[in-house]
């Protein structure tokens, strides 16, 4: 071990804070909610130390609004919440999509609906994270598995938000948020930090919502001398509202394509032992940890089992999964909900591979044994 390397023993929420600070976070607004509160508590302490700002708002709607305001003024901004708060934030997540305001939203999932089980783990917000706000919209959702992954993926969440000017949702769950693990802290410069593209034109000729071939506009920060307009209304390249249906459609298509066209670049996933597998386990977040163990046990018992862990779940790794599915006869999907992401899996494999689900909403995690039983059943 290199002596200059720094390792910390962190719970997932703490790893998220460290990753965010590494990425350049300088603004946090939030509202207390279990099981995400440690993120706010730590940032209340740490942000002023680096010259950043922390504010506890009156609710989650205000929290995301303040985050978007700060980002518009040039800050790297984040909020953290859980189910009920995430529901409240939905309208303004749509605002962030249409107005193209970079931000990171951490949702530490707990058992729902409603107040549900505040301290119990779940993965019930997987579809909400993609489709929670009204209207067609496109954003990015990351799903880490380990504390070190939370650290890395928090950095990546900021990078993606800045690059694509979208809200990026970091979808955690109570288990990984509160599990303590060894996390290697990156050294300065070790991980590239992306900052939003700034306009190169003069203030007079500036079109805030004009996008070049990257499909991402170069938005100035408020106060920099580019006086422009930001609205949640459908707008044209000038940023002002338009009733021109062609221009409206053009905007919505660009907002789609700026993510869809870069899917390959955005999507990340992990596979193990898939080359000769005839059963594929598919799991994310805390559930992937149990699936990994079950995969190892199955291999030790001579069963050809592989695993795919999507670490970006939206956009969904449809094509990547399709390729893998052609080699196996069964995919076992495990999730702590009543069957959400399995719909995407089924859609991707088009009925050509058997898809079996393990769902659980008792507030208990899916155990390795539950995966093992499912594997054995397939092997019978």
């Amino acid at each position: 071990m290199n002596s200059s390397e720094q390792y910390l023993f962190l719970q997932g929420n703490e790893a998220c804070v460290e990753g965010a600070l590494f990425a350049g976070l300088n603004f946090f607004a939030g509202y207390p909610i279990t099981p995400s509160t440690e993120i706010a508590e730590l940032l209340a302490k740490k942000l002023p130390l680096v010259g950043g700002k922390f504010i506890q708002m009156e609710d989650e709607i205000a929290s995301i609004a303040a985050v978007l305001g700060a980002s518009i003024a040039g800050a790297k901004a984040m909020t953290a919440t859980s189910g009920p708060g995430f529901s409240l934030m939905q309208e303004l997540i749509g605002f962030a999509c249409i107005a193209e305001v970079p931000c990171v939203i951490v949702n530490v999932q707990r058992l729902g609906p409603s107040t549900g089980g505040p301290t119990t783990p779940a993965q019930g917000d997987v579809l909400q994270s993609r489709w929670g706000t009204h209207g067609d919209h496109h954003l990015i959702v990351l799903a880490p598995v380990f504390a070190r992954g939370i650290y890395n993926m928090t950095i990546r969440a900021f990078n993606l938000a800045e690059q694509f000017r979208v809200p990026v949702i970091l979808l955690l769950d109570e288990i990984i948020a509160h599990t303590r693990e060894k996390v290697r802290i990156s050294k300065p410069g070790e991980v590239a930090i992306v900052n939003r593209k700034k306009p190169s034109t003069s203030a007079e000729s500036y079109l805030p919502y004009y996008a070049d071939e990257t499909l991402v506009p170069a938005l100035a920060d408020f106060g920099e001398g580019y006086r422009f307009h930001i609205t949640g209304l459908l707008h044209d390249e000038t940023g002002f509202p338009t009733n021109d249906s062609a221009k409206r459609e053009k905007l919505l298509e660009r907002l789609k394509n700026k993510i869809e066209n870069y899917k390959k670049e955005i999507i990340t996933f992990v596979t193990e032992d898939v080359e000769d597998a005839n059963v594929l386990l598919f799991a994310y977040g805390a559930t992937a940890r149990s699936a990994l163990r079950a995969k190892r046990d199955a291999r030790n018992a001579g069963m050809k089992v592989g695993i795919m862990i999507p670490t970006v779940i939206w956009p969904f790794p449809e094509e990547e999964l399709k390729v893998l599915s052609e080699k196996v006869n069964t995919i076992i999907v495990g999730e702590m909900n009543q069957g959400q992401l399995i719909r995407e899996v089924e859609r991707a494999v088009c009925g050509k591979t058997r898809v079996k689900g393990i769902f659980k909403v008792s507030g208990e995690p899916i155990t390795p044994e539950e995966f093992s039983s499912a594997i054995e059943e397939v092997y019978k």
Partner: protein
Amino acid sequence: MKKMLGRDVKKYLRLDKLPHIWCAGCGNGIVLRGVLEAIDTLELDKNKVVVVSGIGCSGRSAGYVDFNTLHTAHGRAIPFATGIKLARPELIVLVLTGDGDCAAIGGNHFIHAARRNIDITVIIFNNSIYGMTSGQYSPLTPHSAKATTAPYGNMEQSFDLCKLSINAGATYVARATTFHAMMIPELVVNAILNPGFSVVEVITACPTYYGRLNKMADPITMLEHQKNFAVSKKQALTSLPVELKGRFQIGEISHSEAPEYSREYQKLVNLVHRHKLLKEGNKNTRSFKSV
């Protein structure tokens, strides 16, 4: 005091975005002009002014003025403005909002921003109605007045937003009407100069949706109503409550001092930074000795 009235405010308007969407007889233009006269009087740098608005007729005013302008979601202008002010305290942040936007859907944000005394100036275009959705009652619709959702008369009591602001912690609170248009610039100047949360409520006329339902379809009648029901501070202090029923005080209502949030936060940053340097300094000294 500098001359505030009759100033040429065209340079602050995005003339290519005009004509505006407001109805004939609407008072919103009068309010907006007063705000621009105040900005001109203060000779503010346009690049350093941020105008944040919500949803409703007042919300559209952000699009007409040549500053950094942000047209947010319904009720949320103030928390957006809070984020901007805290992230860049050097900016002058104004919120242009309506009675429904500010007092109903945004009411909680309004009182909490006042409590924090964050340096934001809120101009409330109070037309007593939801105009954009064509005439539903708002928290500022007077009792017994008619609205499309109060066809038999409004059963609810209305807010006194100025009293609410003062009690919530706002350090500058004033009210004008579009009849008393000449008061607006001075009140807005004072509001902007106040280092804290400032509220200027301007009672404005919506003849189309409020007036027509309440026997004041003519804009002049609505202005006369403003004239007849406004009372000065002196009158307010010397009248009996029964005499003040349905009337509203205009002019500067409250001006006080309290710590301002973004400055207090900056003080905290400076303080913890000094402590951090001190601590690091001590650590370095120790390690130096140990070598």
